[in-house]
């Protein structure tokens, strides 16, 4: 099983995401933002970082990278796509996911070990978790506050499309403590915290992020 990891100029966590893919049991395939094909991957990860230096808005320029046309098309056909942090921002800019990520409420970049609750384990990226399972993974961003209009929020909640919520104090002002959401089909997931930085206790706060990468393997085997 092949999982593509896209590198845009300014992407930072691509090698970390590839490491996590391998730790999860799949093959990691590097994809370049200017690539004209997806190299037969079965799933795609948009990793964290500052693609295009966050010029204009986070993710606003990456959304127009050639490879994104292919990702949007493949996502429409059901390919699992995970956007982490800046990747989440790109998915929102691409309209694969609703809403937007805005500046943290305290206006500082924030790097901390964050507890989140997996509230939807039916997506391609969360099936390894039990519903309600709480995990601790790093949160690190300057613009992580999830915002959307009331109607969208009600829809996300009613359809069970919030996949993870922050536990405890709201770290960044996200509506309804939202840490991650999915699309209607459940194949596209955006997540603000970083599961790829929590695949072993040596380099991360826990190994509890690994579930995102084993989930995708399960999704493919089915």
């Amino acid at each position: 099983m092949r999982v593509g990891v896209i590198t845009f100029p300014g992407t930072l966590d691509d090698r970390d995401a590839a490491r996590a893919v391998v730790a999860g049991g799949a093959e990691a395939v590097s994809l370049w933002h200017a690539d004209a094909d997806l190299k037969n991957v079965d799933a795609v990860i948009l990793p964290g970082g500052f693609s295009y230096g966050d010029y204009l808005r986070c993710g606003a320029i990456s959304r127009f990278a050639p490879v994104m046309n292919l990702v949007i098309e493949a996502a429409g056909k059901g390919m699992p796509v995970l956007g982490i942090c800046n990747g989440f921002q790109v998915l929102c800019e691409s309209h694969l996911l609703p809403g937007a990520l805005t500046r943290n409420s305290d206006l500082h970049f924030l790097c901390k070990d964050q507890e989140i609750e997996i509230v939807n384990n039916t997506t391609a990226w969360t099936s390894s978790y039990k519903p309600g399972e709480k995990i601790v993974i790093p949160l690190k961003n300057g613009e992580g506050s999830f915002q959307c209009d009331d109607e969208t929020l009600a829809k996300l909640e009613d359809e069970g499309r919030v996949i993870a919520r922050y536990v405890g104090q709201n770290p960044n002002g996200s509506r309804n403590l939202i840490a991650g959401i999915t699309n209607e089909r459940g194949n596209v997931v955006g997540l603000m915290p970083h599961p790829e930085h929590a695949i072993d206790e040596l380099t991360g706060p826990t190994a509890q992020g690994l579930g995102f990468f084993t989930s995708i393997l399960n999704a493919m085997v089915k």
Partner: protein
Amino acid sequence: MTLDTVAVAQTTPENAQPFAELGLKPDEYARIKEILGRRPTSSELAMYSVMWSEHCSYKSSKVHLKQFGEKAPKSDALLVGIGENAGVVDVGQGYAVTFKIESHNHPSFVEPYQGAATGVGGIVRDILTMGARPIAVMDPLRFGPADAPDTRRVLPGIVAGVGGYGNCLGLPNIGGEVTFDETYIGNPLVNALCVGVMKHSDIKLAKAAGAGNLVVLYGAKTGGDGIGGVSVLASETFGAGGSTKRPSVQVGDPFVEKVLIECSLEIFAEDLVVGIQDLGGAGLSCATSELASGGSGGMKVALDKVPLRDPSLSPEEILMSESQERMCAIVEPNKIERFLEICKKWDVTVTVIGEVTDGDRLEITWNGEVIVNVPPRTVAHEGPVYNRPLAQPAYIDQVNSQKVNVPMPTTAAEIKAAVLKLAGAPNLADKSWVTAQYDKYVQGNTIQAQPDDSGMVRLDETTHLGVAISTDANANWSYLNPYQGAKLALAEAARNIATAGARPLAVTNCLNFGSPEDPGVMWQFAESVRGLADGCLEMGLPVTGGNVSFYNQTGSVAILPTPVIGVLGVIQDVRKRTPMSFKVAGLELFLLGDTEEDLAGSEWAFLHGVRVGQSPDADLAREMRLIELLLEGNAFFAAAHDLSQGGLSAGLTEMVLRHNIGATVSLANPAIDLLSETPGRVIVAIDASKTSALEALATKYNIAISKLGTTGGESLTINESVIPLTQLRATHTSTFPRLFG
């Protein structure tokens, strides 16, 4: 304005030139005329002025810094020593590591965010220039009093700048310092360290060899920012009035640097460059003259080819601009096509601006007319050297002869109050407000970061080889005795690495001082360098490079002498490191090392406004035995934590709060035991079954050992004083949010 060419200069010898405004002294200007046999052109004057600045030429420090070479210990580890962009050490398994600290003090006072950001950017490019992939940064910072209004202006901006730039580059920030003292009020210190890794065969040097090879400028376009940064900003004392000098601060774009890093590493991987130099202080003046000096000396550059952000820039300004995110490479003609291709892939602007020549002159033209024709060594390496007068300042005898007289706690309530006072003191309080703004996880190899004793990163995922780095300075001790202060900082940095189980290997430094034109400051500097060189020789650690920052003073008030010492060490298996604190109850706590009445220069004395007495003497032989003990004990230590500022009180506070496991400790002489800062001490936690093994080690290495107590519970209990962890944590963590929002 007419172009001041070499031809014009030859026919107008008497033209007045603004050398003083550019920071040159009359005799320096005379020497330039002597070297050239004529007056310099305005472009040549610009080049000499920035390259002969204190910042670039080390003209006041050179005579002292040579001790690092003369007293260098024998070391097989040193692959590239002082003089290149950064030193390189062999860490085994074919890996080489390069690391260096630089200051960006003056710009960060003028424009905190950009000053700090470009400080990070500059040191990262130095590391990249050696051929290495940058893998981590650290940032020792010093500010005026924590509650001073200007600190509230400067600190948030500097922290945001360090984070804003480093985070966007994808470099984990693995440590540093945040210290406050009133002498830094007009002179905050922003020191930035970067470490990079490469294979031995990938080391790159700054040299332009081979006639016909091309001089290639790539990266950001050149703008008008940072003109005179090294000469006007970094090499002068700030007056009380005067302009803010803001235009001399560079403006950074970390995205451009990130792309430049990846682009450069791809270029290096295909072995496409003969020599390489980044454009930092003194910009193109520095890069061209240093590259040419590193080769045979001959180089021709067409300055009009330099891509500009601002087309109105004059040749002089282009030569002096310190626009960020630029690199200069020497490329063989048959490799230029591939070089350009890789730049295109990364959308990096690239221009061939000249070529290496057979001669020994650096010749720069502007639209075909020669505006610079100089022997490059005279610009880059043969600047003025000053043996400045130095004299022990009067304060030394005065403070050394006084005894520290501060109130000492006696009752249980007073002891509790003292521990809490230290826990909440700005110099010792929890720094999460700062470090939470830095990404410590990116790259996925961070093993330790603040608040650990040292930063540690993994180099190899298969063999688990890693490096640890610590930076330390104790300016209070350096003030009382700069010779001992430098040695003590070295010992502390080395100890901070050894507590985790890493073996110290090499040293870098950032020497922050007041004006070298003050004989007292110069004496402090000379004593510090002598102390560091002697210390490194005794401990067998080579100095791989460093940085000197003078003129850190406002009016006649100099900063405390602040030699920041960075020590890098190697750990064979990062999985086996000793953590700085314990995760379980029921462990035995021991103190290694004697505790004397060392209150001079202590945090306790500082909190009482007292800076007198005599600093401890560094006993480096004992420090080395302690390091060996720590490395051997690594096999069975549950935790080990260095004691430094704040003594045992701060050390215990940090340990119990780390994993929220308390401790019960009994002390014979609690006031001194808690507050003294005798160097060479470490708290270790072990399973009770290892007690005799620890005692045997202490005997073997002749290190004093005493039982402190045991771990566990929900309080830090010292004799009859019970401090609930909730209260200790609240005190420790509330200081920064209260001060900085």
